[in-house]
C-alpha cells in the first residue's frame, strides 16, 4: 500500500475494504507496521510492537476470508491495546520499569474476545505507570500528542490515544479508572467510551482500583467504538463482578437520533471565566447542535459532583496503594517518582476516612442515578483546557496548593461517572485557536452505552470535527 489514507480512516471503512477484498488484512497490517516504524519514535505510542504475531494473524484472517469464513466486522482489522491487558507470550509492563520483563502466560478475557472477533494485534500501547496519572518520566518514553508533540496525549491510556490519532492502528482498547480512556479521546480528537462497571471483564487487567477499572474502547467515530465494545462486552465467569446483563446490538442503536431525548447539562461542571474560552465556546456549540437535532436540553444540578475529585483520590489512590503495597515496601526505587509519591500519600489514609469516602460515593451515585431517571443522558465538558504541555503535567507537586489545583478540581469532570459505575464518553466537538482538539462528555444510566453512542453518532452526522486528522507525517 503506497497510499496511507486508509490507515487514518474509521475502522468501519477499513473493515469494509477488507471484506470487499479492496485490501487484504496482510497489506493493511504491513502498512501499519511500516507507519509505526516511521512515526512511533515521534509519538512513543507503543511499548511493544508484536509484528510477527500481527503478520501471522493477518495471514490467517486472509486465508479464512478466502475460504468464505468471517468473524464479523473486526475480521482482519489491525488494532492496539493498552499495555495493562495481559497478552500470552507478549510482555505486559503496565507502563512500569518494575514489569519490564513480565510475560504473562494467559490472555486477558478482553484479548481473547478480540481474537475471537478476528482482529490483528499490532502491539501493546504506552501508558502512565500502572495507569496512574502523574508519571514524570515514562520508562518507555513520554507519549506525545500527534496534534502537538510538545503536549500530552491524555492520561492514562495515552499511548492508545496517540497511536490512533497518529494513524498507527484502526482502533484500540485502553482502560478507564477515573477518565483514562475519555481523557485521551478528549485531547486526541477521538471517541473514548467508558462502559458501565461490570459490562467488560477485568480478568487479566492489571489492577488499579478494583471497583472502578474498566477496559474501554477508543475509536475515530461512535460507530467504531460501538463495534469495539460489541466485541469485548459480556459476562465473564473469571470476573466475579462482571454483569450477566444481555449485550445489545450497539451498532443498531446508532441510528436512533436524538429527537425527543432529554439531555441534562450539569450545572456544577459548566465552565466559568477561568476556563479556556475556546473550550467553553466549543462545548456550548455542541449543546446547541444537539438541541438543533431535536434533543430537549435542560440544566440539572448535581451538587455532590463537586466532591468527586477528593472522593476519587481517597478511594482509587488508596486501592492502588493496596495493590502495590508489597512493591512499595520492597522496591520503592523501581517506581517513577510521581507514581511513588502518589501511592505513598494514599497509603497513609486512615481506613475510617476511606469508609467515609465510600459512604459519600453512595450519595453521589444516588444523586446521579436519580437525575438519570429524569434525563436520558448527562452532558458536560471534558476539561477546562485543551491538552497540557508535557512539562505542566509532569512537574513535581511543590506545594499543597499545587496539589489542590492539579489533583482535585481538574478531576471533577470525569471521575463522577467512574465513582458511580456509570458509562460515559468523550466526543470531539472542536479545536482551540492553537489547533488542539476539544471534546465534550455524555454520560448515561447503567448499561445505557447505546444511548451515549446514539448521541455521539447523531452529533457526528452534523459535524466534521471527528474527520480531521493530526498534521503528522
Amino acid at each position: 500500500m503506497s497510499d496511507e489514507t486508509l490507515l487514518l480512516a474509521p475502522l468501519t471503512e477499513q473493515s469494509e475494504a477488507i471484506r470487499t477484498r479492496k485490501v487484504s488484512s496482510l497489506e493493511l497490517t504491513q502498512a501499519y507496521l511500516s507507519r509505526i516504524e516511521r512515526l512511533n519514535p515521534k509519538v512513543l505510542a507503543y511499548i511493544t510492537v508484536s509484528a510477527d504475531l500481527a503478520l501471522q494473524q493477518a495471514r490467517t484472517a486472509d486465508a479464512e476470508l478466502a475460504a468464505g469464513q468471517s468473524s464479523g466486522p473486526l475480521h482482519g482489522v489491525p488494532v492496539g491495546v493498552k499495555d495493562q491487558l495481559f497478552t500470552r507470550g507478549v510482555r505486559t509492563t503496565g507502563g512500569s520499569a518494575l514489569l519490564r520483563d513480565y510475560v504473562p502466560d494467559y490472555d486477558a478475557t478482553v484479548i481473547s474476545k478480540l481474537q475471537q472477533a478476528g482482529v490483528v494485534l499490532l502491539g501493546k500501547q504506552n501508558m502512565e505507570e500502572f495507569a496512574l496519572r502523574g508519571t514524570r518520566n515514562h520508562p518507555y518514553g513520554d507519549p506525545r500528542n500527534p496534534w502537538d508533540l510538545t503536549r500530552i496525549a491524555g492520561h492514562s491510556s495515552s499511548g492508545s490515544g496517540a497511536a490512533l490519532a497518529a494513524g498507527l492502528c484502526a482502533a484500540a482498547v485502553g482502560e478507564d479508572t477515573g477518565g483514562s480512556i475519555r481523557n485521551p479521546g478528549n485531547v486526541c480528537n477521538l471517541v473514548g467510551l467508558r462502559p458501565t462497571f461490570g459490562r467488560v471483564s477485568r480478568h487479566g487487567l492489571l489492577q488499579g482500583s478494583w471497583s472502578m477499572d474498566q477496559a474501554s474502547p477508543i475509536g475515530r467515530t461512535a460507530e467504531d467504538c460501538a463495534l469495539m465494545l460489541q466485541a469485548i462486552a459480556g459476562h465473564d465467569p473469571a470476573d466475579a463482578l462482571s454483569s450477566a446483563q444481555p449485550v445489545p446490538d450497539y451498532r443498531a442503536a446508532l441510528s436512533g437520533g436524538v429527537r425527543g431525548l432529554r439531555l441534562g447539562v450539569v450545572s456544577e461542571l459548566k465552565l466559568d471565566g477561568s476556563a479556556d474560552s475556546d473550550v467553553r465556546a466549543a462545548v456550548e456549540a455542541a449543546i446547541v447542535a444537539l438541541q438543533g437535532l431535536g434533543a430537549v436540553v435542560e440544566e440539572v444540578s448535581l451538587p455532590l459532583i463537586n466532591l468527586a475529585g477528593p472522593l476519587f483520590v481517597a478511594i482509587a489512590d488508596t486501592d492502588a496503594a493496596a495493590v502495590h503495597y508489597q512493591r512499595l515496601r520492597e522496591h520503592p526505587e523501581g517506581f517513577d517518582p510521581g507514581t511513588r509519591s502518589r501511592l505513598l500519600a494514599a497509603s497513609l489514609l486512615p481506613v475510617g476516612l476511606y469508609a467515609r469516602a465510600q459512604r459519600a460515593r453512595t450519595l453521589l451515585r444516588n444523586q446521579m442515578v436519580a437525575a438519570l431517571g429524569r434525563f436520558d443522558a448527562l452532558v458536560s465538558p471534558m476539561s477546562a483546557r485543551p491538552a497540557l504541555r508535557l512539562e505542566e503535567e509532569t512537574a513535581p507537586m511543590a506545594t499543597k496548593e499545587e496539589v489542590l489545583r492539579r489533583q482535585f478540581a481538574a478531576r471533577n469532570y470525569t471521575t463522577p461517572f467512574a465513582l458511580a459505575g456509570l458509562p460515559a464518553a468523550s466526543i470531539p466537538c472542536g479545536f482551540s485557536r492553537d489547533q488542539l482538539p476539544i471534546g465534550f462528555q455524555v454520560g448515561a444510566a447503567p448499561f445505557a452505552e447505546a444511548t451515549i453512542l446514539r448521541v455521539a453518532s447523531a452529533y457526528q452526522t452534523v459535524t466534521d470535527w471527528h474527520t480531521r486528522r493530526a498534521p503528522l507525517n
Partner: protein
Amino acid sequence: MATNRDVTETEVLQMAETLGLSISAGDLPEVTHRFSALLEQLRKLDGLDLDAADPSAIFPKEAGA
C-alpha cells in the same frame, strides 16, 4: 473526621514507618503536600449526613446482575 491542620513531614514519616514504608528525603515534601491536601479535601465530607448511606463500592443492580 480529618484533622483541621496540615500534617508535618515528621508525622508523615512516623505514619509511614508504622506501615513498614520508607520515604526518601527527596520524596518527603511532595508526599506531605499530597497527604495534607487530601485530608483538607476530605473535610468537605463533614457537612454530609453520611450515616444515611452504606459505604458502597459496587452497586448490586449492575455488577453480577
